[in-house]
């Protein structure tokens, strides 16, 4: 059982801040462990707020990712602050951001490392949620993977499902173990943009959200905290049973189309981030998945409609 001093919480905020200052803060995101350092107070506050409830990692756990996020120079700490993520790479892929957007630098820094250096998994650019067996029920946890273009509404739909009885796996990456076709959780704060923010704050209330981050490259962003229960169960994988490509269409009364065979394979291949790096195992996993799972395109006009459709499809996939 995870005790309160093993998760990030307001009670141990002072300790977490000290660890961030020393570059010794280690926390878990699903099966992965990240070590973070920052001396920037605003980022420390945002981190504590957004990462509330995450399990801390002990000395017995291997660190997969290392990241420092600090002002680019002493001057830029105080005057028109500029913050940059640093993973120690010779050619750094990261760019400096405004001081008040420091948490975005951290988010991008972590996602970039996970997306480029976790080839033990076949990674899909997708949202994932899962249904755990209820009390007294037998059987595995069952996951649905939602892929598709950026802006098609996967983050919003993932957020809606995660707060309607499904366990949040990720709104960013689906991590598939190619040996058994199970997905591993990668529960991160869900980044919601522009119109989605209004829809979701109305639905869930203000208190599960971070402060707004204004004038980013993608407009306004607010982070929706991952539900506490999905963080505590972050180590439990789920069998992938259903794959959908959701598409929000204003005024839609709902539509479903099934993809089969080569078409399903090609769409899934397109959604994978590292298919070519994983190689043969990825090809085999995609073949087996498209043979076993139903793959649907799903058009929806409202959140409740979409949730109902996903639940019905999952029922059907049993």
């Amino acid at each position: 059982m995870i005790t309160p001093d093993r998760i990030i919480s307001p009670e141990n905020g002072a300790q977490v801040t000290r660890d961030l200052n020393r570059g010794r803060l280690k926390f878990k995101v699903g099966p992965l462990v990240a070590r973070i350092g920052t001396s920037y107070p605003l980022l420390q506050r945002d981190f504590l707020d957004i990462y509330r409830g995450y399990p801390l990692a002990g000395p017995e756990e291997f660190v997969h990712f290392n990241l420092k996020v600090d002002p680019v120079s002493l001057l830029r700490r105080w005057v028109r602050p500029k913050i940059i993520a640093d993973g120690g790479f010779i050619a750094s892929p990261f760019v400096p951001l405004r001081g008040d957007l420091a948490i975005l630098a951290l988010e991008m820094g972590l996602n970039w490392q996970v997306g480029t250096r976790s080839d033990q998994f076949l990674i899909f650019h997708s949202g994932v949620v899962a249904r755990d067996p209820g009390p007294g029920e037998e059987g595995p946890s069952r996951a649905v993977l939602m892929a598709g273009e950026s802006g098609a509404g996967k983050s919003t739909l993932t957020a809606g499902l995660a707060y309607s009885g499904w366990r949040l796996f990720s709104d960013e990456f689906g991590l598939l173990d190619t040996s058994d076709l199970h997905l591993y959780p990668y529960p991160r704060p869900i980044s919601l943009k522009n119109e989605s923010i209004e829809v979701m704050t109305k639905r869930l209330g203000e208190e599960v959200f971070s402060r707004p981050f204004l004038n980013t490259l993608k407009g306004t962003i607010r982070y929706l905290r991952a539900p506490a229960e999905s963080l505590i169960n972050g180590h439990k994988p789920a069998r992938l049973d259903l794959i959908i490509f959701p598409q929000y269409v204003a005024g839609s009364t709902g539509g479903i189309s099934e993809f089969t065979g080569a078409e399903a394979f090609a769409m899934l291949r397109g959604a994978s981030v590292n298919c070519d790096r994983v190689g043969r195992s990825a090809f085999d996993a995609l073949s087996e998945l498209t043979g076993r799972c139903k793959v649907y395109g799903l058009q929806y006009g409202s959140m409740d409609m979409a949730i109902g459709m996903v639940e019905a499809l999952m029922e059907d996939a049993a």
Partner: protein
Amino acid sequence: MKGLPEDLKTLLISPQSARDWSAERWSRAAYLAQSGAVLSRVAVDLATLDQDAPDQDADQAPLEVPGLDGCLLSAMRNGVRSQTRLSWEMDRIKRVFWDRDLKIVLLKGAAYLAAGIPCTRGRLSSDIDIMVAKDELASVEAALLDAGWVSAKEMQGEESGGYDDDYYRRWMHELPPLVNSERKTVIDVHHTILPPTGRVTADAAELLDQAVPVESEAHGRRGYFVLCDTDMFLHSVVHLFQDGEIRGGLRDLVDQTDMIAHFGARPDFWERLIARAEVLGLGRPLYYSLRYTSVLLDAPVPASVLDAARRFAPPLAVRMMMDLLVPRALSPSYLFESDRGAGLAGELLYIRSHWLRMPPLMLTRHLAIKAWRRIGGEKTA
């Protein structure tokens, strides 16, 4: 002399001793290996150890750090993929010249793969390097451009030509890099192994003349050539110690260590190597390679050879300076441990690499142009 970080050295030369390491120790060591671009190799070596000794005794116990197996699997897949890609690229390039009677010499990673040098395992190669006779350069470039390669500059949306392009064509030992427009892979076409402007140059005709056909049917590359053993070794050596900036060059030093073990067993290899370095004028960089591979990675260089190479050594002051700088520039450092010495060592060796590459006036002009453009925010070669 300061050595490599101890745990990194252990991973490179006796990874079996890392089995009982704690998670904290592994976390730091894996980071260092990743920074030095050798993690994939380490992962392959560990997997091979597991295969060779399926029943475990005490020092063969499986790794018991949770999460580490995933990291190593990821690194191993990357290494395999890099070699597959290289092999495929060799195949595609071969097709471009299938009807030409052209001597194409593979260099660096492609050559190690074709010739079956052990350092090819888990080796991450981003580019493919080939060498042709200088009077074939224009026709080789034209054929590649015709077959779907484009200039790397154009790929980035910049115009080709201009200072960088001109700089390559006039002063360098290779064409400006070409990129395959479909696969985004980069090819460097060389006509010799050192810039003709440098303090030391090598006779390209001599290198081409001694190149040997690739015989290994296993790789199916009949038709390609590789430099002969001594030259293959010397090319890696000049790349690291004469032409390159040393910083970030740990992988090259590992290549050289593997070649020493691989070639060192051949009859007369060492005599031929010393003689060849003399003929080609590459004694100084050879001295550095033998010194640092043996000190930093325990490469099996015979004592008599180290003695013989001493005649290529620089004056004492330079030697001391290099002993101070080289290990620091080659050692990756952990993100959460500050290491100011490494940064300074890297900068100094970067300046040295340019000093060796061109005469003082030309160097001044080149660095001035690069600095001017850096102020203006432009990218440079």
